[in-house]
Structures are given as structure tokens and as C-alpha cells.
């Protein structure tokens, strides 16, 4: 009875020992490897989240270069950035709803106009714009940035 118990104990502890020696480190090492391989993505995602939460925009601006550096081409990284930013936006909306309120009279035209514009833009201008349009965009952003910092 006792012997049986001991052998069972040994077998049991052997299984435990096996788990300790092989499985647990494997799981930890595997997870560490996953983290290490995706470290840039994880930090980039965190930074994108902070920008998206703090400024209500710009998460994509952070996510696109991170994705591009991880080896995706421009189109794919733009598309994937949208998928990254959508959950962050939903989380931020819940947080924002507790301290800001908007008039629906403002929200409605913005949403309708924005959706139509986005559809048109995605349909007819499939490439990422370059050249003059890009410089105009950069100039507008820089100008309004200066204005916001000074005023």
C-alpha cells in the first residue's frame, strides 16, 4: 500500500518534474520569444494607443511607420493600421463619453459628410497621394500646429 503510494508519488512528481523542466520553460520561452519578435509592434501599438486616446486622432500616423518598418508594404501597412486603430478608438470613445458631450447637430453632418468623403476618396483615389497634395497637407498641418502652440 505504502510502496504503491510512493511509486505513485514518484510517478506523480515525475510528471510534475517533467512539467517543471520542459513545459513551463517552453511556455515561458515561447511567450518571451513572441514578445521579443513583436517588441517593436507592442511598443508601437502602445504609443499609437496613447496618441489616439490623448489627441483623439493620430494613432494611424504612429502605426503606419511601425508597420512599414516591420516589413509590410505601404498599402498593407495603411490597411492594417486601420484595423489597429479601430479597437483603440472604440475604447477611447467609452472613456471620452464620461467627460465630454457633443451636440448631435454637429455630430450628424460631420459623420454623414465624412463617410461620403471617405467612400469617394477610397473609390477614386486608390493610391496614397504624393507630390503637391502631400505638401499642401504638410503645410496645413504645420501652420495649424504653429497656430495652436502660439495661441
Amino acid at each position, binding site marked *: 500500500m505504502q510502496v504503491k503510494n510512493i511509486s505513485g508519488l514518484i510517478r506523480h512528481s515525475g510528471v510534475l518534474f517533467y512539467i517543471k523542466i520542459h513545459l513551463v520553460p517552453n511556455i515561458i520561452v515561447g511567450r518571451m520569444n513572441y514578445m521579443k519578435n513583436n517588441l517593436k509592434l507592442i511598443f508601437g501599438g502602445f504609443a499609437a494607443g496613447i496618441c489616439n486616446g490623448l489627441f*483623439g486622432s493620430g494613432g494611424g500616423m504612429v502605426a503606419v511607420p511601425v508597420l512599414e518598418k516591420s516589413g509590410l508594404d505601404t498599402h498593407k501597412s495603411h490597411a492594417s493600421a486601420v*484595423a489597429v486603430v479601430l479597437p483603440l478608438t472604440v475604447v477611447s470613445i467609452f*472613456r471620452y463619453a464620461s467627460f465630454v458631450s457633443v451636440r448631435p447637430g454637429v455630430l450628424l453632418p460631420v459623420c454623414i459628410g465624412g463617410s461620403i*468623403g471617405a467612400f469617394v*476618396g477610397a473609390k477614386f483615389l486608390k493610391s496614397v497621394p504624393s507630390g503637391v497634395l*502631400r505638401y499642401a497637407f504638410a503645410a496645413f498641418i504645420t501652420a*495649424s500646429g504653429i497656430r*495652436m502652440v502660439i495661441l
Partner: protein
Amino acid sequence: MILSVVSAVSGAIGGMGIGGGIILIPVLTSFFDIGQKSAQFINLIYFVPLSLCALFVHIKGGRVEFKKVLPMALAGVPGALVGAWVASAVGITFLKKIFGLFLLYIGISFFKEGKKCSTRVLRHSKKQ
């Protein structure tokens, strides 16, 4: 009416793949007398239907790399919570100043990238 035209333009720019909200927020705050935090909230809400439409098209086209999206989104959710909490805690003028700095940074990096892009395009066209 003017509001919807403006947001259509910014939506078109967003649909092309460079940030629409980055334009929408300064326009809303400077021309329509809407507070910074409300403008950000509007932009967040307006992004949801827009990105759902865009994602539908992109996933169908097989351009979304979920293996890379997953770690970024998982790490981004706590980041978004922290960012939104900071946005709720700081004052409007301070938030406006940080936002202005962020805009400046993006504008300058766009100027730099524009140069790089144009040279890349030139090289590409020469090859062909």
C-alpha cells in the same frame, strides 16, 4: 451644411490613407468654435463608421495582416485608456498646446518623407 462639406473633404483625405482626423480637429476648433475635447470626441466617433467601411474593403482585398495587427491592438488598448485618462485630466489650453506640437511634428515629418517619396518615385520611373 458647410460642416458636412468640410468633413467630406477630410473624409476623402482620410480615405486616401493619410489622417483625416488630423485635418478635421484643427478645422473644427478654429473655424467652428468647438472645444478641443469635443472636437477630439467628434473625430473619434466619426472614425468608427468610416473605418468599418474601409476595413470591409481592405479585408476583402486581403491587405490586413492580422498577425501584426493583433499584438499592436492588444498593446494599444491600455495605451488608449492611459491617453484618454490624461486627456480627461489636463486642461484644454494645455491639451491644445500638446496637440499643436504633435501636429508640428507630423507636418515636419511629412515634409521630410515627401522628399524621400519623390526621389523613390523618380528612381522607380527611371527603372521602368
